[in-house]
């Protein structure tokens, strides 16, 4: 059964529009210092549409929905762009909640926590593979992350993450109001990326503590036996499962998108005002909203504030910028020392305040903070001084734009 809004139509049409738009941007964009930024903004927006496309596609290949007629909820759970049953979605290294995206992709942090608790020994998984092994499920998630990060590095953060787009839009708002950004000290900034490892370790440890009954046979926290007499899957368990998701600032935005298109009741949002602090399932908590507000204020002051401590970004860095993965990562930021004049503009425009492209002598200057957004490459006024490469092939390189254009028009206030 192919419905009117079948993925067979929506997905190729979407891909065609994106491809044509990218070509048009590359051909028509004349400002060399904004070309990559314009392209990146477009790809970020397209990525959000792709992530949330599950909401836009009707029930697919699901005969049993036919007698009922489709409902918005069917779009959430019935749709699947790939046409296969991937009940938990494909792990992606950026913040994209499970439910809003129609089960196509899933934030890997959610999976890493959920497969420890409450789903350690709960049959979930992929297509016929309803694995009951928590370790196997975790291995699948980590393996997917390694493949993604070895190939594309932290470019997921720079080009695809919906929450990255949100922060970039806040930066644009700040620039429109002619406010200058602030920088943290280099020393503090280096500590921040390290703190992302601590954050993910803490939340994973919490998941292990909550899931101790299933993993070790010992209930450390009372009420955490799934289906047990005190804790039930519908009750206590879902109040403390996936602890990072209870504080994640991206979740309110995902739910806002669902509510905005009518797929979810606004009571999910309003419950945080008059409801309990801990609300089960994929509902919001007041902590989610508080963190979002704080991050929003910070992102209006410090560019990509959240990305500096994001545990997902930390995982991305771990699998692309640290040994042994650093040696085999395919997407790189490279520097030609002979062409560099140490003007420092690259360091100044970097949204995460990465410094290796300025401080290091040459060669591979990709570091854990680098989100491969290519802003430094775009703004560097010396031809071939900086470049983004994939498997040794140059994707983008700095150009000597000072000679042919008016440098006074360049906006460095990023």
């Amino acid at each position, binding site marked *: 059964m192919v419905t009117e809004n079948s993925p067979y139509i929506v997905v190729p049409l979407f891909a065609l529009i994106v491809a044509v738009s990218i070509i048009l941007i590359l051909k028509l964009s004349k400002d060399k210092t904004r070309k990559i930024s314009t392209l990146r903004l477009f790809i970020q927006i397209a990525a959000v549409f792709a992530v949330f496309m599950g909401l836009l596609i009707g029930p697919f290949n699901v005969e049993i929905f036919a007698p009922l007629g489709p*409902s918005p909820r069917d779009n959430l759970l019935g749709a699947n762009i790939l046409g296969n049953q991937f*009940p938990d979605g494909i792990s992606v290294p950026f913040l994209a909640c499970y439910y809003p995206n129609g089960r196509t992709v899933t934030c890997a942090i959610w999976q890493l926590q959920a497969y420890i608790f409450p789903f350690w020994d709960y049959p979930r998984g992929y297509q016929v593979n*309803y694995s009951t092994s928590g370790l196997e499920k975790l291995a699948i998630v980590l393996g997917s992350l*390694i493949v993604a990060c070895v190939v594309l590095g932290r470019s997921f953060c720079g080009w695809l993450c919906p929450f990255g787009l949100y922060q970039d839009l806040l930066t644009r708002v700040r620039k429109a109001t002619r406010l200058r950004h602030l920088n943290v000290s280099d020393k503090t900034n280096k500590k921040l990326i390290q703190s992302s490892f601590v954050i993910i370790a803490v939340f994973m440890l919490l998941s292990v503590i909550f899931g101790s009954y299933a993993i070790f046979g010992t209930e450390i926290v009372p009420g955490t036996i799934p289906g047990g007499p005190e804790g039930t899957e*519908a009750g206590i368990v879902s109040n403390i499962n996936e602890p990072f998701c209870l504080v994640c600032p991206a979740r309110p935005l995902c739910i806002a998108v669902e509510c905005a298109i009518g797929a979810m009741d606004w009571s999910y949002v309003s419950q945080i005002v008059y409801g309990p602090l801990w609300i089960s399932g994929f509902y919001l908590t007041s902590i989610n909203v508080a963190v979002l507000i704080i991050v929003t204020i910070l992102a209006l002051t410090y560019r990509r504030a959240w990305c500096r401590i994001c545990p997902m970004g930390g995982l991305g860095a771990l699998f692309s910028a640290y040994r042994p993965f650093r040696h085999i990562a395919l997407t790189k930021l490279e520097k030609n020392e002979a062409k560099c004049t140490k003007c420092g503009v690259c360091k100044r425009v970097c949204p995460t305040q990465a410094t290796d492209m300025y401080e290091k002598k040459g060669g591979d200057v990709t570091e854990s903070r680098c989100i491969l957004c290519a802003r430094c490459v775009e703004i560097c006024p010396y031809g071939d001084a900086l470049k983004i490469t994939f498997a040794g092939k140059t994707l983008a390189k700095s150009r000597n734009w000072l000679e042919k254009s008016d440098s006074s028009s360049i906006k460095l206030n990023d």
Partner: protein
Amino acid sequence: MKAREAKLFKLRIVAVTVGFMFLFLYPSAQAQNATPFTPNDKFIIPQLNGSLNFAFNGTYTSAALQNDTWFFTDLTLNRNNSSLRLGNLDISVKDSNITIFTFYSDRLSAQFNRFGSIRYFAEGAGTQTINLNINTTDQTHSSEWGVINPAGVFLAEGKDWQLLPDNTVIVYGRTGNVTVSHYGFGVDSGSTLPFYMQHSVALGLLAVLAVTVAAATIIRFNIRRNPLHGN
């Protein structure tokens, strides 16, 4: 020899086709001893001041009122000239009258073996207690359930509905169209499948990971040997 193999192949095709036809015909055959009902037949629950009826003609093999709950087995609704066996429904209605438009409780499908849904119109802001008899004895997760209001939006749990440990859903205070659905997260552990199928995703990913790491290592090695490679 080849002709014999071709004949055997055709025989197998015919056998499989007949098997599939039997599967489709089987539900109808089961409904032969069913009791018919019409939209005018009201199923009353006097103690709770509630009643229910169905919007379409249909059948059941048994319907009994016990403990103020109607237990229907092998329900069918003759909608769109279809009389698919819909499953068993346990329902209690308090201080309201409801008309059931659709019902489905999947106990046959392997792929969606926990799907269940009911859509009804409620008159009077009473309480409806519904057990869809989805194909599991496990306690389900609240996030697997959806209660959808007349505007077609999904209500948060605790807002006019509640899930009990035995997978019974209580809807209270709602009038108009209400849909209660459970979505099929498969519970089949696949333990009867061969090893490579049970772990197909893990094995597939392992292969992809190995190829990626090997290819990346070779590429980086070549780049280091020849810094101008590819540029």
